[in-house]
């Protein structure tokens, strides 16, 4: 509809002139084409680094969809702004048209905006649920003996998941990992610091908490951030699809050395994992023995215990 212009009260108009619409559409198409062409080449620059777990892949899908919608919105708005700025400057002999919105003028922009909002909402719910659905361990993974699944917060755990459950405890400024206990003999806990070792192709459920202040567990290749809050247990999961070391870093400010609160997840084969656990148990048992002996000796000789 062409804007009617009068000198008295504003006339009704509900749409921009065709030229502008054409310009906006053309810019949109050009932008989209460029984005599609550039995406494979520049995905490394414009997006997160590759994911190695089903939930991380879901997050990447969500990122690309949402960021393309955002980029299109930015493009359309700024193109229209620049067009308006260039075309409608004050010039000699030009009088402004006092056009104002008639009834229904806002329906045209409101419908696509509502469609974007609703579309992103539906998409968000679906993709988020998908990322929360724990995938079962595959046949190549560690056939974890315990099929006992503890309460796992917001996660949906299938019956055949056979997950490896690991407690992750944040403390200033490192992470402690408690591995599941399989043998009923000392040492009664198997743990490691800073580096988590897990078998490949195996579903791992992490129970994240903190003993002091808030931290955030974040290994970008293996899923999203979860907050470690004292007094709460937050669950997340991953199933690494290839061996390797995946770095990450806490993303919640926790005081002086927060920037060095890093963590690594080393993904190894199931056999290597079992060896690692055995090795760890031997080391811990040896260390506990040593300490116990030292304490006993100290007590025997009357020296001050450390």
């Amino acid at each position, binding site marked *: 509809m062409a804007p009617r212009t009068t000198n008295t009260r504003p006339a009704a108009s509900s749409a*921009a*002139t065709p030229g502008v619409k054409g310009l906006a559409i053309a810019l949109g198409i050009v932008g989209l084409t460029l984005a599609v062409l550039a995406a494979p080449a520049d995905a490394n620059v414009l*997006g*997160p680094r590759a994911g190695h777990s089903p939930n991380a892949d879901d*997050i990447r899908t969500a*990122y690309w*969809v*949402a960021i393309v*919608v*955002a*980029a299109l*919105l*930015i493009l359309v*708005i*700024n193109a229209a*702004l620049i067009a*308006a*700025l260039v075309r*409608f*400057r*004050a010039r000699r002999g030009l*009088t*402004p*048209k006092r056009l*104002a*919105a008639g009834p229904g*003028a*806002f329906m045209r*922009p*409101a419908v696509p*905006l509502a469609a*974007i*909002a609703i579309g*992103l*909402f539906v998409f*968000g*719910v679906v*993709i*988020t649920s998908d*990322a929360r659905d724990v995938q079962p361990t595959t046949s190549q993974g560690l056939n974890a003996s315990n099929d006992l699944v503890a309460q796992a917060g917001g996660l949906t755990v299938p019956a055949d998941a056979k997950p490896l459950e690991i407690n992750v405890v944040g403390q200033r400024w490192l992470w402690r990992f408690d591995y599941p206990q399989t043998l009923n003999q000392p040492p009664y806990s198997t743990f490691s610091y800073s580096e988590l070792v897990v078998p490949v192709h195996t579903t791992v459920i992490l129970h994240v908490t903190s003993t002091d*202040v*808030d931290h955030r567990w*974040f290994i*970008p290749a293996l*899923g*999203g951030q*979860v*907050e470690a809050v*004292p*007094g*709460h247990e*937050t669950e997340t999961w991953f199933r690494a699809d290839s061996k390797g070391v995946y770095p*990450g870093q*806490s*993303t919640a*400010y*926790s*005081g002086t050395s*927060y*920037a060095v609160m890093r963590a690594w997840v080393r993904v190894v084969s199931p056999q290597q994992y079992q060896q690692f656990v055995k090795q760890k148990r031997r080391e811990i048992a040896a260390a506990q023995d040593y300490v116990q002996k030292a304490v006993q000796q100290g007590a025997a000789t009357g020296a001050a215990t450390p």
Partner: protein
Amino acid sequence: MSPPTAVAPARPEIVTEELPRRRPAWVERATSTNHKSVGILYLGAALFFAAIAVVELVLLRVQLIVPENTAIQPQIFDRIMSTFGVTAVVLFAIPLAFGLIAYVVPLQIGSRGVAFPRLNLLSFWLYLVGAATIYGSLLYRPSEAGFAALPPLSENVFLNTRGVDTWVVGTALAVLGFVCFSVNLVVTLHNMRAPGMAWRRVPLFTWAAGISGYLMLVIGPVMLAALTMLFIDRHYGGVFFNAGEGGAPLLYEHLAWFFFTGVYMLVLVFAAGVISDVLPTFARKPLFSHRAAMISMLAIAVLGPLAWMQNMYTAPIGFSFETFAMVFALALTIPVGLLIFNWIATLWDGTLHTRAAPLFAIGAISALSVGLAVELAISVIAVGWQLDNTTAAQAATTSVFVGGMVLGGFSALHYWFPKLTGRTMGEGLGKASLGLTLLGLYVYVLMAFLAGVKAQPVDIYKFFGDAGLDGFNLAASIGAFVLAIGILLELGNAAYSYRNGVRAGHDPWRGATLEWFTLSPPPEHNFDAVPDVRSAEPLRDIRRAIQDRTASWRPPPPPEPVEPPASEPEPVEAASAEEAGGEGTAGGAPVA
């Protein structure tokens, strides 16, 4: 008056012993309850803290130029970072909005003052004492508790320093001041609008101010409660946020995020008010839809704060609460999008006079669109898991804050500076500042965003070389420096123009709202006569009435044909356009 005769009759006389003593100008300024004086105080303080915040930002970015930089010690970095957050949001953004509101809104509604002038002044001093309290801790040891002082970190167990206490008390004092300010603002708006100024006719900046006032009345006390609880935890054995004793650390997160999300919406609504007043004035055409802009702003203020849990997607709050937050965060798309549509439609077919004020406003729309579109993406829960608390989310927030408060605020400053001082701000300097600010902002935002997508966390005092983010960080730092130069340039522009700017007339922009009906700067009582308001553009009506009357005015028929007719039709001046200075000349002479 008849000429004095030789013998004057005796009559009562008023005798004064002396003139009321004139107090020093600064005392006058500090204690005047006039809303214009309070507004200037707020503005001065806000712009001062803008400069401080810019310096702090530069220091933070200097540290992040190269990986594992050791230029600034970790603890010093944390103190600067903690102070920067509160400076930018509580000491700069809100006071800048409130300063302009305090000055302009009573003028826009054709009022001679405000409802509670002393409360208004008190609010400023509470804010300034709060700011002094926070910055007083520079003398010993500022807070290291981070941007929002989230417990448990801000509990006594982990940070047993008085810096955190000054942070808590100072922020609380400032927020208390803002609540006092809002009480006065809301009452003024309800009771003191000019006759005929129905709500549908109030200027959009005033509408935004009213929404900001109500918003602050809702969110301010929530933050006050959170800070009080934190203080009780720290000093009086409270366990509100102590998980070990049965408290809930997440409670503070909820309360603080409700406040900061509300402030975010306040920034948006304020910028929307400024842009909606500036663009029509310079495009010489009314806003595309006054009513739609009003509804959009209201919708932002209602929906926005309800999305506070958008910041807590990673916390153990459950899928249903996260979805609840996502609903409101995504719903904001519609009012924000309609506002932007409204502005572009206002520019369309207009005749834009490309002065600094509308250009700043257009820059603000652009920066807001960038920041808000990225926020839209982050509102999807799964994307939030990836980007929350990374520099990507920080870049989006920066774009919105700089777009809304710096560019929007500078647009307002350019627009109303002639009203405040009778002088215009430097146009060339303003445009140069706009260019630098936008350029720096976009370089910074893009680079910080890309680094954040690759999981660079916020608030870190150093990043590691093996993260592969050296180039992004270097470019982001350069962008931040250019941004800083742009902002400082404009602050210098304002400081210089305050006394040395080019003199402007009383109505340099041909504005359509009532503040341009009076002198620049306005007299103590604002208006001699308050006109009846008949539309959303009262001054346009007045101009047209004057035009009609002058056009139809004919000189009265000459009584004598010998007399020459009146040469020029005299323009009928608006009643208030006379200097209110008639009494100062004769009445003041003391009688000894």
